[in-house]
């Protein structure tokens, strides 16, 4: 039964998955167990994305199904779900750029891989990254950008982190659009990730994956 939800959700069978959740709730099962299964399913989705079996539409769709499951389960919950997290990552699309598709994928993948992700959204000024690092004490920052204007915004963000005296406490990774190794050098970031999986690997390398 438990396995059922994991595979059905991972296989993106929306109706079946929701049916299973409804049945389990009706049977009085612990909502937390259901959410845990769902989380495991999302991990599978992430794996499949990594292996190029799944693509962005699958992430989007699985996210939608997960949202529906959460909506079903939430009213029955008496205590908050607590998941052990590997570590904290701040992520955002840099100043001047409002593209969010790439950033959202990285957020998704970091999340299903067990990280606590602080997503600052798009067009994020350097100071906001700095403030969030201070506030959360995160040790990894991911800068996303699609347009070529992001080259400079990333550079400015890394510099702002430096000016705040945080440069040696955090690792900065960049990615998206036209980014590559050359741009990493230009911006002074620690690493460039060619895709979301690379971002996850970097985070694991820097934070350790428990």
């Amino acid at each position, binding site marked *: 039964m438990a396995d059922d939800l994991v595979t059905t959700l991972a296989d*993106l069978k*929306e109706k079946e998955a929701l049916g299973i959740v409804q049945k389990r709730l009706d049977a009085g099962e612990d909502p937390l167990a259901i959410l845990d299964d769902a989380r495991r399913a999302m991990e599978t989705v992430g794996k499949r994305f990594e292996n190029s079996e*799944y*693509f*962005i*539409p*699958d992430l*989007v*769709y699985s996210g*939608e199904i997960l949202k529906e499951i959460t909506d079903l389960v939430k009213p029955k919950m008496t205590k908050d779900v607590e998941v052990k997290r590997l570590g904290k990552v701040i992520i955002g699309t840099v100043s*001047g*750029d*409002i*593209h*969010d*598709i790439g950033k959202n994928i990285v957020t998704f993948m970091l999340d299903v891989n067990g990280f606590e992700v602080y997503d600052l959204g798009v*067009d994020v000024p350097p100071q906001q990254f700095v403030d969030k690092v201070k506030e959360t004490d995160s040790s990894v920052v991911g800068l996303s950008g699609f*347009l*070529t*204007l992001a*080259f*400079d915004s990333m550079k400015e963000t890394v510099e702002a982190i430096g000016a705040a005296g945080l440069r040696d406490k955090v690792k900065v990774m960049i990615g998206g659009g*036209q*980014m*590559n190794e*050359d*741009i990493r*050098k*230009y911006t002074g970031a620690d690493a460039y990730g060619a*895709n979301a999986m690379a971002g996850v690997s970097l985070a694991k390398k820097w934070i350790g994956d428990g």
Partner: protein
Amino acid sequence: MDKTEEKLEQWCSAQGIQFKDAAAEEAYKKRTRRLADAIQLKVPDRVPIAPLVTFFAPNYVGLTPEEAMYDLDKAYAAYKQTALDFEWDTAFSHLIAFPGQWLEAFDYKQLKWPGHGVPSNRTYQFIEGEYMKADEYDAFFADPSDFLMRTYLPRISGVLAPLQMLPPLRMVLPYYLGLMFMFGVAGAMGIAGALESVVKAIDAFAKHSASTAAFGQELASLGFPAIFGGMTQAPFDTIGDSLRGTQGIMLDMYRQPDKLQKALDLILPDAIQMGLISASISPSPTVFIPLHKGPMGFMSLEQFKTFYWPTLHKLMLALIDQGLVPMPFIEADYTDRLEIISAIPKGKAIYWFERSDIFKAKEVLGDRVCIKGNVPSALLCTGTPDEVKAYCKKLIDVVGKGGGLIVDGDIGIADEAKPENVRAMTDFVKEYGVYR
């Protein structure tokens, strides 16, 4: 002579163009011939360089994107100076530096632009959104233009919001009954006021269009053919960009694939029309098709084959059928779908690659289509002239072998590209790209 050849020959003949002098005429004819040869996979005299330019031109002359979008004459001068300084094989006008007055008068919601949501020194950006909701397909099918007029336009333009109070336009069909109804409502709702704003907006855009048309004429008279003649979109992108949004269209592939498919088929004839109409006013037979939502990662190969490619394929074939040369800008990475997109008649299209493995593309597609690209923006913005030259050398050596290459940046010339790098790219191609 097939239709493509006929059109290209017509282009090369430079008929109807008033040249400044004989040198300009010779240069124009040489350039069009060079491009026509590359398109038809013949060996031209040298590798053509035909970059698309967005805000690099204003940046290059020290104008902000905001100024370029609000001052038509300054924009004109900036793009002209850029074209004359670099002397590429084509010229590109300030066509996509949309007039700010137009966007303002329409209270346009789908873009943020310099001074309106983005800083004055930045390019405009599209605002993703579900401009058509998941349950609105049927309304769209029942009367597409009515949906656009009364639902879509009010969503993308504040000024056009009163349109939602109009009765459907199809109501004019029932004779004076409909007429009376429509006029009465229109009058009562103060559509007239909105109309004035619209007239103002349209006027701003018309001035802009006239200015870019004049630009095309002047640059042609100076020897520079236009980079493309017409423009259209892949049906999947039209539905995804303009209506359903990225997230919406992705969900539709699972939840309502039949409706999505129907919408794609419905819009295809219009996509073809767009290409034909827009190209009909230019001597250049190329049709620019920016592709957005079909690359690796954005969908599986299977989804690409099912949803993206069929209507794009039909679109390109329909354009080729009329002798036009489709020029898809293949954004992001298509390396795993090169075989699929190779199903295209030989020597009749230009594939402009961004991040695909362009060298592999040469292997797979080199004997079918002319390849355009792809000097990385990263290099142009942050690299050195030597690095740029090294990349261009490899491009010319490998992709340019035996013809069939047009050099451009991966996304055109990046807005923030360093002029010395662009200079290096230009000079190097002109020198090293000569076929001997």
